[in-house]
Structure formats: C-alpha cells, structure tokens
C-alpha cells in the first residue's frame, strides 16, 4: 500500500507527464524543427540534423487540480519535503483544492536522433523518438480516505475509477512533405513503434466503510502490465509479487504503427494560411507473452469481537491490504491506441514574413477522454534567424495559460525553447511548483542546406 501511494505521489511530482499535446505555441514558428511534428506538411526554411539526445526534449505536467505544492510540503523540521500523506499536513488545507475527479498527466519526450532535408519541392525527415506518459485518475474520496480516514464519527467512501496508466515507447518515423503548388502543401509521416512498457491499473469498484461499528472494504481492480523483459514472481498466496521480479531485456513488449497526415493551404495573396493535421493516428499491440495480468477482488470486513455468555466471535474477514494484491490471471494480448491529436489552424500575416497572428484548435483523443485546447498566438520573424511567438491558450474551456516560444537559427545552429505555460517557481528538478499545468520544450540542431531566402530566389 505504501509503495503504491509513494509511486503515485512520485509520479505526480516528478516524471511530470501531461495532457501534453506538443507545444502549441510552436505551431506558427515556421523555422523550428518542432513544427513539422505538429503538422507534417510544414517545411522549415532549412534542413537540420538534431543533436543526438538533445535534439528535442520535452517535459509536461498537467492536472485539473493538483500542483506540486499541493502534493509536497516543506517539512516542519526545516529540511526537505513531506508528502500530503504526512501527519503534519492539515487535511482541510490539503483537501480544499481538490475536485471530485482529479487527473494528473505527465509526459516526457526525447528525440534520440533526427534530421530533415530539402529535395526540390520536397522535404524529408527521419526521427527516432522516445515517449513516456503517466496518467493518474484520483477521485477526491481517495484523498479523503487517506487524510481523514474514519474521522471522529465514521466515513463511507466510494473510490470507483481510481486508476493509473504508465506507457513508454520508441518510434522511428520517416516523413515526407511536398509543396504541390504556391498554395498547397501536403505531408505524411509513417512511424514504426516499439513498445517498452504499458501498465494499466484500474479499480472498477472501491467501497470503503470506516465507522466505529465496522470497517469494510469491497474492491474490484484489474492490472495489465506489459513490460519488455520484466517478469514478476508470485507470492505464497498466488498474487503478483511486484518486489520479486526479474529483468532481462530481449525484445520490445509490443509493436505498433502510426501515421501523421497534414496539409496547409494559402489564401489572400498568401497572407492567410489554413492548415490541418492528424498526429499519432495509430496503435501498439502488446504481446501476451510480455504481459502480466491480475485481478484484485478484496473483501475486508472487521467489526471487532462479540462476547456473550455463549462464547466469543471474531468478525475479521480478509486483510486490510488485500485490495493492493492482484491475483495472477491468464494474460492476453491487447492493443492500446496512441493519443491521436487533430490540429486545425489559421494564420494571417499582417506584415508578410514578419508579423502574423494565428489561431489553433488542438484536440487530443484518449480512452474515455478528449482534451481540447484553443490557442491564439502572435508571431514575429526577423528574417530566418529569429522567430518568436507569444500565445494564450484556453485549456478544455477551464483555464487560460500564457506561453512563448523562440527559435534562434543563424547559419550554424538551430536552438529552440518554448512553453505553453510560462513558468513560475520551479523545483531543483525544474518541475513547476505552483502551476497545475506546465510544459517545456528545448531543442538543439545544426542547420543543413541553403537558406530559405536563397532557395526562394532560385525557385
């Protein structure tokens, strides 16, 4: 139990993955290495080779309620941090910020290798990327259970839909973009995906009664863990023993494929650009031989003893921590969809190739959830050397964020940094402390080929 809670807390606080839908602010930065990943029809001014392991790194965190400082609190001793589960954290103070369903997403992405080059009216890309996603669904009652327990007079909790998902995969993609004519460009990217891990734990039922006359837990949960090379032993009760495992990496836990499609069209003397793209339309199939499956069906009942003249009865049934134990069941192969994103945008250039304003609608589809973000951005370009965007996004119609992105690309380097949510205070590990949503993208590459202006002249 402690392990699960710590893992959940660490996931919330550290790895930081998100409802991260790429860096929306970069959509209108034509010269960045990133915007081709938002719409494969886009072509940067010049080709590039990304610096291995530093070509593009992104980290994103988002939650509808929880920021880092709502999970971790300064230790009253004056040194270090304690979790919200610590006794010194006041329950009322902690619970006041929570919603009925609390979602936490953490995304971490890294480009291992990437390059792109122009060939006539075409632009080719090749990328190897790593992606990690963590998603937690935490009902408010989970936190109440943790912080209040029975209270003074007893409590009843319904923590249905408590769950967590962790996935990790690498993708190898080849992209092609073609300028059909002065107005129309189209592009596509094919990706082969090697799945490293997909762990999904979810409780369809979690009723907890903590009263002075009885404690009762009735829980039904399922676990699917597909991990490359990782196997778990059973404990003496036939339950999966997560601490007793063996790791021997031989091959990916799953294989998949995905495609990106995009198009852009220029109107009004090429001042207005309309564009649309579908990103990560695909799936990963996880093999049964790499999957560990388990179910938790816990019934715990405790009402103490009953003593009378005829004898003594004890009411104990089950174990308090049974709901954290998953009995092994026959694993089956399963498929998971990627987080498919649809981007639709319009951009108008007030001063051609210098100042523009754009509007981007970005919708990401996940199992049982859809996230929509609307971003307005203003972009300034100083020739092909420097471009900067400032954006304002409305996230799921709930709250607004302000971001910026800068692409610096003289002849010898292509440096990129951006965020959809300007950072406030961050931890030593660069995790935002007070923000419910944050992301940061950094990229470094070496330009290839002729300058955009030179090519324009020759064409």
């Amino acid at each position, binding site marked *: 139990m402690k392990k699960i809670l710590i893992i959940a807390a660490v996931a919330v606080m550290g790895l930081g993955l998100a409802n991260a839908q790429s860096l929306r602010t970069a959509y209108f930065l034509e010269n960045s290495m990133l915007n081709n990943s938002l719409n494969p029809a886009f072509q940067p001014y010049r080709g590039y080779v990304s610096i291995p392991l530093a070509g593009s790194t992104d980290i994103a965190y988002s939650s509808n309620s929880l920021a880092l400082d709502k999970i971790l609190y300064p230790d009253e001793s004056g040194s270090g941090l304690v979790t919200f589960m610590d006794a010194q954290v006041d329950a009322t103070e902690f619970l006041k910020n929570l919603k009925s369903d609390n979602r936490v997403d953490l995304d971490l992405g890294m480009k291992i290798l990437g390059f792109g080059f122009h060939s006539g009216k075409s632009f080719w890309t090749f990328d190897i990327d790593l992606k990690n996603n963590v998603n937690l669904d935490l009902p408010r009652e989970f936190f109440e259970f943790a912080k209040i327990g029975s209270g003074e007079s007893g409590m009843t909790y319904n923590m249905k839909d408590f769950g967590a998902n962790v996935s990790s995969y690498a993708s190898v993609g080849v992209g092609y973009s073609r300028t059909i004519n002065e107005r129309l460009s189209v592009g596509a990217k094919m990706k082969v995906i090697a799945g490293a891990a997909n762990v999904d734990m979810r409780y369809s039922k979690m009723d907890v009664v903590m009263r002075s006359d009885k404690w009762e837990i009735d829980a039904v949960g399922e676990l699917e863990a597909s991990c490359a090379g990782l196997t778990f032993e059973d404990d003496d009760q036939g339950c999966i023993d997560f601490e007793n495992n063996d790791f021997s990496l031989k091959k990916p836990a799953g294989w998949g494929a995905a495609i990106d499609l995009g198009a852009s069209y220029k109107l009004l003397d090429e001042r207005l650009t309309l564009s649309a793209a579908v990103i990560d339309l695909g799936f990963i199939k996880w093999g049964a031989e790499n999957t560990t499956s388990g179910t938790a069906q816990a019934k715990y009942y405790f009402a103490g003893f009953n003593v*009378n003249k005829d004898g003594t009865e004890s009411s104990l049934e089950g174990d308090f921590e049974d709901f954290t134990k998953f009995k092994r069941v026959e694993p089956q192969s399963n498929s998971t969809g990627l987080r498919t994103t649809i981007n639709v945008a319009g951009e108008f250039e007030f001063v051609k190739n210098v100042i523009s304003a754009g509007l981007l609608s970005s919708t990401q589809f996940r199992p049982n959830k859809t996230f929509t973000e609307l971003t307005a951005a203003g972009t300034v370009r100083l020739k092909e050397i420097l471009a900067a965007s400032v954006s304002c996004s409305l996230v799921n119609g709930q709250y607004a964020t302000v971001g910026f992105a800068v692409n610096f690309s003289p002849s010898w380097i292509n440096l990129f940094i951006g965020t959809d949510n300007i950072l406030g205070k961050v931890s030593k590990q660069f995790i935002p402390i007070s923000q419910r949503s944050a992301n940061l993208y950094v990229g470094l590459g070496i330009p290839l080929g002729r300058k955009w202006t030179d090519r324009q002249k020759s064409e």
Partner: protein
Amino acid sequence: MKRNLKFSTVFLILCLSLSSCVDNNYDLTDINTDDITIGGENLVIPMGQIEINLGQLLTKASQTINFPVNDAYDLGNDGFFDGSILDKLPNDGNFTLVSVVSNPIGETLSLRLWFDYRSGDGSSQTHSLYVLGDVSNTVRVNAAGETTVTINVTRDMLDHFCKAVDVGFYIGCEKSSVTVDDSNLKMTIKLTVKAKGGIEL
C-alpha cells in the same frame, strides 16, 4: 556575426531567467516518507461489543435481578481478538478506549468491567485491564439509556486487551433487586479505539 552574438545573448538571458526561478527548498531527492499514514488526525477502530444477558442472571422464580452480580466469560487461552489492525497503529500514539454502555433497566447501575490477560508465556501471572471502573471503583450507568466512558490507554494496554482470556464484570444497584418484565434484556457495551495519527503504511 555581431548580430548573431546579440541574438545569442538574448537567448542566454532568456534561459537564465528561467533557471533563476528555481526554489531550492523544493528538492525532489529529499522527501521524507517515513511518516506516511492513512486515516489522518483521528481514527476510530471498532473493537467489538460485549453482551451481558441480564435475563440469564434473573432469579427464575421472581424474574428479579439480584445485585450485586459478579460474573466472568471465558475467552479461551490464546487471546480472543485478532489485533492485526492494531499492529498498524503507531507505537507511540495516543489512544482512547471508548465504551458505550446501553442500560435497558430503569435504574441507575454501577458497572465494573475488566479483561484478564496473562503476561509472558506462563499461565500463572494473570493481570486485569480495567475498561470500566477499576479494582475498587465502579462507573455509574444511567438508567434506561446510554452512557459513554472514555479512558486513555497505551499501545501495550491494547496488546493486552487482544490477549485477554477472560472478561469479568460486576454490576451493582442501589436497590437490592430489580424486577423486569423481559427475560431477554441485554446490556451491551460497545468498545472502540480512537487513535491519533492514523495507520502507518
């Protein structure tokens, strides 16, 4: 080249401005997880209930309870109560044992209740843990209603409680006897433990 230098400087300043926002007090490598608990500040744990069937104490002829009554229930030799849930409570916690006595008789009663446990592995050393009253005093139980009595206990006392082999009680009344109509009248004593600090994980 000069212009590139300017741009580089601007870019560097931008990066540095981000790093200047680092709060050194938030170091995710220094998290204390030793005191993680669930249950929060107050935890109430059911311990069980004792039923004293006053009907079985009646004088058959007169349907009259003769006071005082001393009696004991045998709980077995190995302790009667699975106290595994108590193992999760902090050793240095503050505990309160709450007894709610339900008195079905329309007379104020005096009540003493204790659990006998044996220390060590021997069976000769028997000690008594008084839950209501003590070795010489009783508590007053209101007529025809509930009376709540709380006592502070230590973790050791709770362990002794779980290992009890007998529960003994004394019931007294100002009147020498009380006549009742219902031979199935039961006095119930519900016991709960209130703990500060939650369950340790």
